[in-house]
């Protein structure tokens, strides 16, 4: 009985998703600091706006470049055997 294990392209998205999680956490920390301690100034507001716009632009551009990829495509496949017959030669 053969078992087949496939590595598909979407596995590449897993480390990227972990990175995005870290990115979101640090972004929230940054936004908390400037909102709490920045003193509601025009410069602070503009910088925050530019940061969020830039982040969204980068994320959208990434999505746009990747949307045609077939993520279910099998990159690597390997098979193994179950129910090995072990002939001891007795």
């Amino acid at each position, binding site marked *: 009985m053969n078992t087949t294990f496939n590595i598909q392209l979407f596995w590449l998205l897993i480390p990227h998703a972990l990175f995005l999680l870290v990115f979101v956490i640090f*972004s929230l*920390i940054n936004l908390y600091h400037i909102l709490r301690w920045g003193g509601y100034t025009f410069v602070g507001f503009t910088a925050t706006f530019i940061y969020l716009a830039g982040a969204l632009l*980068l994320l959208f551009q990434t999505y746009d470049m*990747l949307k045609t990829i077939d993520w279910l495509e099998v990159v690597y496949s390997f098979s193994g055997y179950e129910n090995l017959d072990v002939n001891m030669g007795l």
Partner: protein
Amino acid sequence: MTISEIIHKKVYEEIIYRLRKHPLLFARTVLVFLFSAAVPVFFYYFIAVHYPTLLEGAVTKPALILVASAYYLGIWVFFFAQFIEYYLDNWIITNDRLVSIDQRGLFARTISELDLYRIQDARSEIHGIFATMFNYGDVIAQTAGEKEFFILKGIPDPHHIRQRLLDLAEGDRKFHVLSKT
């Protein structure tokens, strides 16, 4: 939070100056960021010339896009953190106190206060070509308090700020003398 809330402004207190480092000191960070943003572009052209099949491979193309995306998001959030560190460094001069807010990274912040009447002496320094051209430098206030020196680093027009600081300190000393009599 407004600046009054951050420094717990007293009823009789009036904010005279809110100072930050000169914007030119942040320009260095901007240049580093722009150089970092250009690095993947050079890599792209290098790969396009020497290894063009990598840009069209079924695995390599999405992998390169994801790596570039992570790189740009990483430098973007780092650049914003550097801006916050620059922007949240403040010196607030009121008619009663000198408050220093020193943001170190994202997770460290030091707030120091100095009553103006404790200022014994102040000097201002401008060093370097750019500092001279764009008129920024340091003001060092010598105090009678526990902390001997209070330094305002890289602020615009330091000579004017030094003079105003000494004038305000003199005024605060007179206020304290009068209030005791």
